[in-house]
């Protein structure tokens, strides 16, 4: 198992997000993770529509095919279901595919292979099969992305046993979670957000893993707990930055992974604050917001001093037009409003 060896050999697993050291763009951090993985293990291959384009997929794959050859980094036909099954089949016999998509919307064509096949092989094969497969996609937003190029479908998949779902928000996590996902022996979906991908941050060199299923505090405070992932959490952090001069403070938890879900960190914080706001980039109904809200009502009811609040997307579709879109996505002001309401009550 080259993976386990390499990762154990690197002490990087203990690396904490430092305040000093190398600054890397989010995209370069991802690219570095793929490059390290390809270098570490000949079973890793990277595929997707346009990964060999001159600029790679959003820059994440740029030049990888030159470095590792088109045998291992290659363009695909537009066959999302077929290729997902092909990846699952390759994984079932020991390879480690990383299948990249521009948009999660395209994964909807592959649900049969994700939900009815890849997620089930380990279980249906009574432990005799395993699927070390990574499916990566980047949630779109703005500039006409519209109803069919902006969908954040994590909530649709969260209830499927056997899957892992990762939603990073920093370059450090993006790299460490990509490496962790490739090292994992289960079908793992990574939902990046195009807007988070614009950021830069501290990223250690070499191999390190961010543990799948562990959240982290981005801020500590006392008035409430804000929990979520990805770009929704970035907006929440901005909202809290603006509210702090008014004397409002919160525990802001970046879950980083929504499946498995780090329940402990949520309960730990809630015990202290008694109030919780769940934020997500996806639909509010029956998704991540709903699940965490229910979880808290079920298991931490007695810690609650007020109703659970959630901020996700309304029960409607993403408009392509600029002005309509401003109403659709919850912004910093909306979050501030909800947080103030929660604190004042």
């Amino acid at each position, binding site marked *: 198992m080259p993976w386990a060896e390499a990762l154990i050999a690197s002490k990087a697993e203990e690396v904490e997000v430092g305040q000093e050291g190398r600054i890397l763009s989010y995209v370069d951090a991802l690219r570095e993770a793929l490059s390290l993985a390809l270098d570490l293990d000949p079973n890793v291959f990277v595929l997707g529509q346009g990964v060999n384009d001159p600029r790679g997929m959003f820059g994440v794959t740029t030049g990888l095919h030159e470095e590792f050859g088109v*045998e291992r980094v290659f363009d695909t036909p537009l*066959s999302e279901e*077929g290729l997902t*099954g*092909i990846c699952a089949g390759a994984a079932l016999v020991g390879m480690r595919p990383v299948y990249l998509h521009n948009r999660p919307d395209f994964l909807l064509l592959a649900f049969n292979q994700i939900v009815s096949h890849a997620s089930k092989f380990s279980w249906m*094969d*009574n432990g005799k099969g395993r699927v070390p497969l990574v499916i990566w996609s980047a949630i779109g937003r703005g500039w006409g992305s519209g109803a069919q190029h902006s969908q954040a479908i994590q909530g649709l998949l969260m209830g499927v046993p*056997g899957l892992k779902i990762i939603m990073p928000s920093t370059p450090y996590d993006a790299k460490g979670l990509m490496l962790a996902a490739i090292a994992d022996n289960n079908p793992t979906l990574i939902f990046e957000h195009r807007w988070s991908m614009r950021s830069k941050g501290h990223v250690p060199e070499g191999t390190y893993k961010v543990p799948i299923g562990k959240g982290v505090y981005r801020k500590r405070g006392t008035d409430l707990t804000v929990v979520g992932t990805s770009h929704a959490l970035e907006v929440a952090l901005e909202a809290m930055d603006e509210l702090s001069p008014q004397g409002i403070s919160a525990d802001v938890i970046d879950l980083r992974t929504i499946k498995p879900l780090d329940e402990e960190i949520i309960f730990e914080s809630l015990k202290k604050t008694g109030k919780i706001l769940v934020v997500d980039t996806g639909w509010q109904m029956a998704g991540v917001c709903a699940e965490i809200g229910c979880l808290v009502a079920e298991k931490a009811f007695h810690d609650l001093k007020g109703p659970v609040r959630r901020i996700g997307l309304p029960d409607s579709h993403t408009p392509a037009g600029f002005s309509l879109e401003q109403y659709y996505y919850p912004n910093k002001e909306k979050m501030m409003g909800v947080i103030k309401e929660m604190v004042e009550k």
Partner: protein
Amino acid sequence: MRYPYNPENFTSFHSSETVYDKAFLTRLYREMLRIRRIEEEIASRYHEDEMKSPIHLVIGQESTAVGVCAALEKTDLAFCGHRTHGVYLAKGGDLKAMMSELYCRANGCAGSRGGSMHLFDKSVGMESSSAIVAGSIPTSVGAAFASQRRKDKFICVSFLGDAATEEGAFWEALNFAALHKLPIVFICENNFFSVCSPLEVRQPKVAIYKKAESFGVPSVQIDGTKVLEVYAAARQAVERARSGAGPSFIESVAYRYLGHGGATDDSASGYRDPAEVEHWREHDPISTFHDFLVSKSQLTATEIEQMEKEIRSEVLSAFEHAISSPEPGEEELMTHVYSD
């Protein structure tokens, strides 16, 4: 009669000059007979409702699985759909583990998680099957891809029904296999029906193999009732795959005698002419091969009697094994949801 036996489009691969040794011929006969006897036993006990699993019997089509698997190495990987029994047994899958699976026992090949539609035995290359029509086709192509990229020795065989070629996933997988010249053989078992729906209401009148051919994949239609035809065609396709020349597609035509699922012939319900079933029984893969072998003095009545006896005792002990095996406990439910 809608679908009479019609050799018009069949390509013949078997030459009457080819000499097979008696042991090989006997093996083919025995394997077909064994599958049939096992299926008959399942059918005869199905009403007891102890095998709480949807079954899809392969009686009438045994020659395809047997002929193809005879052309494979143990290390080659087979994949199939919901009609699993024939492929599983022909590939060498453990009979006891299969029966335990049908009887929902803890020692079933899938630990009672799969039932009849999810049989596998990875120790002999029976890699996977799917209850979703066409679902295992991409899986098989993925395994073939892995074999090619890692320069492994194994090739893959993907068994599919005629209706599976109506699914997009099949064409997506075929396209990819052709594009990358993957070491895989597609075996389409055309029995003219998808449950009760005849081919003519599902596909335009273009032979299935003709469509596959348009991908640049060598494609043929063969007489799926003749095990030596199947074997000869499969051998050529397997050699092609192993040599790195790429995929092949074989449409093997044969007829299922019983209903789509369950243990009885449901022709009387009206979706097909019972006379059609009788007509195909005249081309029965086992009895025609029997007559052929007897005419060539390759098989004697005593040998057959001995074979039947051995099979009978193996079948009875497999059923006995399954029935006396423990059922899984509740703790089984939550294991292996994730792999370590």
